[in-house]
């Protein structure tokens, strides 16, 4: 009984909706609540009994994850975490099948599969318990979303008493159910036989290369959701475990702000010692605020709620930060005001300037523009952007290395 885990991290051409931040960091390593997105996944996996190995699978160059893996090895000495690089797009299930020898080495009985771009409390231990209580091949983590946004996701219809999934449709055109897939799965390792069957169904026969390994022709990608989960539901081998905790997708860069807030709220419940506190002579803190130990905050600044401050940040006298992520080495001058924004690495925010976004109303919306106009959203400054004193930058997305010398509104600044 030694489960393994896989985190699907995607690739550089995938994270385009996370621009401009993904121009400087791969999305899975973007920090929310003080640590990279996938560190939250790993923290949850580390609590699963007997789980010793985590494989990251994606299209990034090997070097992208090397320092992250070193840090993770120090933090979790009992976990073996590796990165496996895909060179050819085989679809999510095809990628898993491609690395089946690595995954099945050591004969694990179960394997967790987590998409990197979701945020939740990852109730994996409860999921595992539920999985072991039924005879299915797969347990899928499910959550309820507002009815009008359900068709953006994989929708599930389940038997209320047994949690057996009766029907699974990926992004249906009409309403099917408000119970959706969280992108977090637990499979029995027999799933690899199912993938093989799906592959055979899909193409009739499996071709092999000169080494006897199976190869897929382009256009024969095998997708986890459509090509694997659907048939599993039809075969009554798919079960859902519903979580009542928060769940969000991290698609656009702006979605990192609400996710940051949710993870910080969670920390406030579970590990409040990791968050900033009001101290005599310290800055005013409201709600859940994370401040990296190397950041310097002026005692007359006010931060929070839902604020993460990165390493070596300087926040000047009289500055105000709320509902925002401030990344490494940012310099916020005195009396500046930052609301609903992400401030990129090494940026400089001038005195009395105001950087402001609009919290997005729609749950998990991904569009940046609508009929050519920029949608009201979180304001994002890329790496090394400077904002001149006394200007206002409202509802903008600014690409890296720009000097903003005057105010701008509702613009993408390239």
């Amino acid at each position, binding site marked *: 009984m030694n489960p393994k885990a896989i985190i699907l991290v995607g690739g*550089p*051409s995938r994270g*385009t909706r996370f*621009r*401009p931040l993904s*121009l400087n960091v791969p999305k899975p390593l973007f920090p929310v609540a003080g640590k990279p997105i996938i560190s939250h996944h790993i923290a949850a996996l580390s609590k699963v009994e007997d789980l010793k190995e985590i494989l990251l699978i994606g299209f990034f160059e090997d070097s992208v994850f090397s320092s992250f893996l070193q840090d993770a090895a120090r933090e979790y000495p009992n976990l073996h975490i590796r990165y496996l690089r895909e060179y050819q797009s085989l679809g999510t299930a095809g990628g898993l099948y491609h690395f089946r020898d690595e995954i099945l080495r050591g004969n694990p009985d179960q394997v967790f599969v987590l998409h990197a771009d979701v945020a939740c409390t990852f109730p994996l231990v409860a999921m595992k318990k539920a999985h072991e209580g039924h005879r299915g091949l797969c347990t899928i983590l499910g959550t309820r979303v507002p009815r009008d946004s359900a068709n953006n996701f994989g929708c599930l219809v389940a038997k209320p008493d047994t949690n057996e999934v009766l029907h699974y449709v990926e992004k249906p055109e009409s309403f099917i159910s408000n119970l959706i897939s969280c992108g977090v799965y637990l499979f029995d390792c027999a799933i690899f036989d199912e993938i093989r069957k799906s592959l055979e169904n899909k193409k009739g026969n499996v071709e092999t290369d000169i080494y006897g390994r199976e190869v897929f022709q382009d256009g024969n990608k095998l997708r986890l959701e459509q090509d694997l989960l659907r048939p599993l539901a039809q075969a009554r081998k798919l079960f859902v475990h519903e979580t009542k905790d928060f769940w969000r997708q991290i698609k656009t860069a702006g979605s990192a702000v609400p996710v940051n807030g949710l993870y910080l709220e969670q920390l406030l419940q579970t590990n409040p010692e990791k968050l900033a506190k009001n101290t005599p002579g310290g800055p005013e803190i409201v709600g859940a605020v994370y401040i990296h130990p190397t950041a310097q905050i002026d005692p007359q600044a006010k931060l929070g709620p839902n604020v993460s401050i990165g390493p070596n940040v300087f926040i000047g006298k009289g500055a105000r930060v709320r509902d925002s992520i401030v990344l490494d080495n940012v310099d916020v001058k005195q009396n500046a005001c930052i609301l609903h924004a992400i401030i990129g690495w090494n940026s400089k925010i001038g005195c009395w300037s105001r950087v402001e976004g609009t919290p997005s109303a729609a749950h998990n919306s991904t569009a*940046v*523009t609508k009929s*050519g106009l920029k949608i009201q959203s979180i304001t994002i400054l890329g790496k090394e952007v400077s904002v001149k004193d006394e200007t206002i930058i409202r509802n903008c*997305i600014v*690409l*890296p*290395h*720009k000097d903003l010398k005057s105010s701008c509104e509702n613009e*993408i600044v*390239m």
Partner: protein
Amino acid sequence: MKALILVGGFGTRLRPLTLTMPKPLVEFANKPMILHQIEALAEAGVTDIVLAVNYRPEVMVSILQKYEEIYNVKITFSVETEPLGTAGPLALARDILGKDESPFFVLNSDVICDFPFQELKAFHEAHGNEGTIVVTKVEEPSKYGVIVNKSESSMIDRFVEKPVEFVGNKINAGIYIFNPAILDRIELKPTSIEQETFPAMAADHQLHSFTLEGFWMDVGQPKDFLTGTCLYLANVNKCNPGALANPNSGYVHGGNVLVDPTAKIGKDCRIGPNVVIGPGVVIGDGVRLQRCVLLEGSSVKDFAWIKNTIVGWHSTIGRWARLECTSVLGDYVTVKDEVYVNGGSILPHKSISANITEPQIIM
């Protein structure tokens, strides 16, 4: 001889091309922008070239090492830790520029022309003063800073910033030659050569102008990049027509078409005028191209129509697609069949499946 090229920062004006490629390496007429300058400098006898940069990407270092061997020049990166303006970099490179008494060239990395370095040097040595600015004539001088000479002389009298009334039509072309004595005027701090150093030199009667004959363009942003391409191709047609596609080969229309030998062109195309087709580009049948640049590895499917557009490396344009109005595609962009793009700035790796009818940035 020595030269300094002011490369500067991240070339944000030329985005989305410069999001993945340092500006000096973006191909202008199938040759990296900086190579146009290095070649001309080497031909004029320059052996030491300093690149003044704010950052030094690895890809640039390795490519320039290759050029050092090919052109037998020494290329040094002079990296600013803080932006030093247009004059500060001269002070930073003082050790190289001032190592002997010979004059040195300075040029902005964005300018394209038929670089007249030898004539410039002869002119400079003939007047014997500290500096010479290359000037070019423009139609609308009110948008620029105009240079006014003393009457009947090449000596510069004054500079007029964005003149309201006509005082002349000669503007600074961003190419200079200086005696090392200029280095005594410049401190190692952010300084503008145009606004601080030059007026002081003019006041001391040390600055002359050299009028550039022929074409000139600052190609630092997409619209001007395309205009500059037209001017450059017209000049090639005048000086070295054999380098262009044969105007009698069935597909060429209106001339001034530059095609890399490794590109493939389908049947029944009409290409030109003013088109640059890069290495490995594949063009389908019945394609219409005019006033556009297709960078390396891009492909244009059958019956597509492209005008006033830069297509980035390895991008794909679908059948019956139509691109125009200064559209710029980053690398690995896909425009689906039948899609219309009217002034889209499209970042790398995006796939465009719906019309872009008004100019906008697709992030």
